[in-house]
């Protein structure tokens, strides 16, 4: 950075003011210089930039809101924290302290849940890949395990033969519930009869007890009817299990997929108008489940593996403007110190990007780039922003879901993550990486080390 500002050729911009019209959202912007009540500069000073911040209060309140909304509508409910959405220990422990079980989709996540003190019988084990050893551990510990495909069913039966007790399993279903595109790759298809084949195969095998049904309609599902329909179809299969095979399932797992307050690039309306509340999701699911013919005292446990909707809004990323430049087409471009390396969700989110200080100047269409030397590193293609000076901060929200678990050590090292509690105290929950972290697993073969 040179002390003297460089000259920039003038450009002509149309003034746009006023309310939302059919072409775009309102050009109005606001500024924020605190995260969960803590000044941005204090946080940058403590952890550097960029930095991810998680607000504990938001995590807790979202969890309670969803749990209470379900518990008011169904006699037995259980949340299972979706580890892949953010499996930082501190974040997981907030959910576990609120009573959530763990939902994992790999042996690594299973081990991480155990590390966080989750008893094995409070782990829901999903996913298309579970090794023989992982199946054995889950069975021995009484975990809830949902079978994804016939080959896994065969492997599970092989493991079961070596165990003293008959393990309990659930079946993952995929079904047509209005959500588009249909997720057909996980579980057994309901409408084609594959799911019933799996039931008969499982029951006929005699090695496993069928105790649950699982279904996950999709991700960022905004259509409540999808949940109502999926729940009704799962309930229908549970009814058939009881009527034809005398099997009373112990749990129904409706997966996750609720939207957060983020706005998708494909979304026309702002999220306040499109994203259903957690209560509405709860209502849709329990309405659908009322198709279940079962006495209240035998009602199966309703499990939800909500991830994004609980954690997304709790996460904020502080980034710093590294450079400001004019593109050949006349648009303004800002280079931030956080790009797609840490913001995986920028592929489909239109993030809320908020300047921390009141900037001077007229808002103009701006494109925000990350720090990578890669053409694809675009955080936001078009945003009405006044000119921001180099070194000024912006908040990027919501970023709590998936970004931390999916951020890459690509060109840049991964930044620090901190948590802020209700009292405004904050602490690092994962420090910024150094080169040592990057190379820790590397070795140079002997013929090169001479």
């Amino acid at each position, binding site marked *: 950075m040179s002390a003297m500002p460089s000259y920039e050729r003038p450009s002509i911009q149309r003034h746009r003011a006023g309310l939302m019209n059919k072409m775009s959202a309102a050009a109005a912007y606001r500024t924020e210089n605190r995260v969960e009540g803590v000044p941005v500069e204090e946080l940058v000073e403590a952890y550097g930039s960029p930095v991810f911040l998680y607000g504990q209060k938001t995590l807790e309140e979202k969890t*309670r*809101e969803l749990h*209470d909304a*379900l*518990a*008011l*509508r*169904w*006699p*037995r409910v259980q949340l299972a924290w979706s580890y892949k959405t953010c499996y930082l220990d501190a974040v997981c422990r907030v959910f576990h302290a609120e*009573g959530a079980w763990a939902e994992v989709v790999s042996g690594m996540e299973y081990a991480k849940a155990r590390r966080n*003190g989750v*008893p*094995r*019988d*409070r782990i829901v084990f999903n996913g298309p890949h579970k090794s023989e050893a992982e199946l054995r551990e889950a069975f021995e*510990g*009484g975990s809830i395990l949902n079978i994804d495909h016939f080959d896994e069913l065969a492997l599970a039966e092989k493991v079961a033969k070596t165990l003293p007790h008959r393990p309990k399993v659930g079946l993952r279903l995929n079904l047509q519930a209005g959500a588009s595109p249909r997720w057909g790759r996980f579980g057994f298809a309901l409408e084609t009869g594959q799911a019933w084949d799996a039931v008969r195969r499982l029951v006929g095998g005699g090695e496993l007890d069928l105790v649950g049904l699982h279904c996950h309609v999709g991700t960022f599902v905004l259509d409540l009817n999808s949940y109502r329909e999926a729940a009704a179809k799962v309930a229908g299969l549970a009814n058939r299990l009881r009527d034809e095979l005398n099997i009373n399932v*112990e749990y129904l797992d409706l997966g996750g997929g609720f939207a957060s307050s983020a706005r998708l690039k494909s979304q026309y309306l702002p999220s306040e108008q499109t994203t259903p509340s957690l209560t509405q999701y709860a*209502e849709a699911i*329990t309405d659908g489940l*009322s198709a279940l013919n079962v*006495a*209240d*005292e035998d*009602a199966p*446990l309703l499990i939800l593996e909500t991830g994004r909707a609980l954690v997304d809004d709790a996460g904020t990323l502080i980034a710093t403007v590294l450079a400001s430049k004019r593109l050949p087409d006349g648009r303004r471009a800002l280079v931030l110190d956080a790009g797609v390396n840490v913001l995986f969700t920028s592929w489909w989110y239109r993030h809320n990007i908020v300047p921390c200080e009141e900037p001077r100047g007229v808002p103009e269409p701006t494109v925000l780039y990350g720090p990578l030397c890669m053409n694809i590193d675009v955080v936001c293609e078009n945003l009405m922003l006044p000119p921001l000076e180099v070194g000024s901060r912006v908040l990027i929200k919501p970023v709590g879901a998936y970004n931390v678990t999916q951020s890459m050590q690509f060109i840049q090292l991964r930044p620090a993550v901190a948590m802020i509690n209700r009292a405004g105290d904050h602490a690092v929950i994962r420090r910024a990486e150094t080169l040592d972290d990057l190379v820790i697993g590397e070795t140079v073969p002997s013929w090169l080390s001479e």
Partner: protein
Amino acid sequence: MSRSGPPAVSSVASESQADSRATEGIGAHIPAPVLQGIDAILASYSQVLFSRSKVVGLILMAASFVVPSVGLVGLLGVALASSVAVVAGLDREAVRTGVLGYNALLVFLLVGAALEPSPAFWALAVVLAGLVVLVHVAVGSALHWHLRLPPLSLPFVLTSWVALASVPYIRGMAYRERLPALDLPAFPGPEIIDTLFRSLGAIFLQPHWAAGALVFAAILIFSRIAALHALLGFGVAVFADAWIFSFPPDFVHLYVGFNFIVTAIALGGIYYVPGPASMALAAFGSLASGMLSVALVHVLQPFGLPVLSLPLVLTLFVVLYALGQRGPEALPRPVDFVSGSPEENLNYFRTRVARFRSALPVRFQLPFRGTWVCTQGNDGEHTHQGAWRHGLDFEVADREGNRHSADGKGLTDWLCYRLPVTAAAPGTVIRIVDGLEDTAVDEVDTENNWGNLVILQHAPGLYSMVAHLSPGTIEVAEGDFVTAGEKLGKVGSSGRSPVPHLHFQLQATPDVGDPTIAVEFQGTVLDNGAAMLKARHLPVTAQRVRNIARQKALAMALAFPPGQHVQVRVTTDSGTRTEELISDIDPLGNRSLVSPSRDARLWFENRGDTFVVYDHAGPRDGALFALYAALARMPLEDAAELRWEDKLNPRRLGTQPLAWLRDAAAALIPPGEQGIAYIGRRQEDRYVVEGTSPGSTGQRPVRTEAVLRLGQGLVSARVEVGSKTVFVEVVD
């Protein structure tokens, strides 16, 4: 004079009980059937005085041997009758517990005392043994099925009449001149004591002070309350003799004295819970049986038949049958459970009242799911007044206490709006009102006060109503049977409802607008910070309440499927041994755990949302004793932390020093229950329940701990009473 209800330890225990006994202690070389026979004979003696104790039986047997020839006939008669019953394939359990033997004992004592021994006598004995058993079974089952009355000693009276009346027509048979006991040396002390003892001895056809003294000792060992009532009955007899009746000489101590006494014992603590009311009843019954004695002597004399115990039998029949027609709350309270000694009955009853008493015959749960807040309790400031004072209003509030979002002007802003409303107990839908629109916020429909509603009938004269439902949301139809917790409809704001809320009330009559009656919910969790379970609860305004959130893993850990065998290792201060516990179920569906080696039984029930232990019979160093104290009441919710309180029976716990002394006055100054506070915590895959009781005045402190592996079963249980510890571990 058998007691009603099943005996303490039934068939499961008895199968292996004799085997285990044969391998330990005194009976090491005696075959099992012989030991069982001895048990049955001793039990026949103690049953005459409503006891089951073998010690009591032994002392009473000794009393019957004051004239050895008479005692011997009695003993042989019991053995003969019991054998006949076994050979005839009659209820072995009744034989084992002496229920089939006591009438035979009395019959043979009578003929032994009244008839001259001769060869013909022994021929008659075989006939009599068969006859008394058949009469007992026939009369006993007829009385039980048609009148719900115990046979008492009616079979003895009937069989004895047959025997005595037929004597003149049997070759070689003759009456004795006088009862042989009358020829023994007289009592050296005061006459009143002599009369008391001779009256007591007369129960065993030995109207002699030595027999009576033994009988009195046996009664004292059995029960101090019974001893007190024996004296009461005798006092009534002496008073009646002196002031009311002109009894013939020797009448009290020979013929009727014991009728006064046994009637008093039976009414004062065996069939009714001891207390001032039962004591008054005992005095009255005693006097009535005296009057009946005179009357019966007058009636029966022309036929040459003695009254025997007929006065007390008839008195008890009339009293039991007549008072059986009353409601459940009437005094004195009937012993409607497995009767033990009067002291046990008193303690059990009081503990049961403290733990389970409810004015309602049906268990109600809150009519919703999740945590709600009571916004208007009984005698509320708005509408719950007068005839409708027992109404309850509920709404939902978030954890900050907000009952609505936004400004609360729209119905959907209210958190409870359109939430499911459920049945508070199983019942039949008898009335539905639907189709009334939800009124806007702050508006009311005073014409249709209750709005859309559902009325359920739960029992005769017991109805519940949920009101102000949203139109078109009612999911049941009139005539439907619903189970507890089943969805009825959704919360609305129809009728007199300024904001969406749920109104719940109980009523004794089925119509809309009828007066309310008192309501009480069972298994309610108060959710104001630390969760606290209330076995019975009436919500008050501003209280956050919910039902127990039953989790299957905990229910499975306490399932004890019938027939299950559990091996446990029991460590006490005196060492470690193993016990086998067997899960049992009786024909009525009552569940229990049995420890055959300790002759112990623990009654329990899974009530759906709670596991409760009702009672324990057996030694206080056995495995089941530890379970009795550690698992007394278990909500089947594996919450992070849940607290609850319970009351335990100090007699069962053995926490009262000098209990013997207290017992004498217990009927008038009842003993207190032992309060105990439990806290349940989830720890990894285990659920740990700790109980602490500081013990009130005169009670030893109690500490308990139970560890359950969720979804699996019991891991361990520990109870510390004073300085004594019993620790039980389940052996895999």
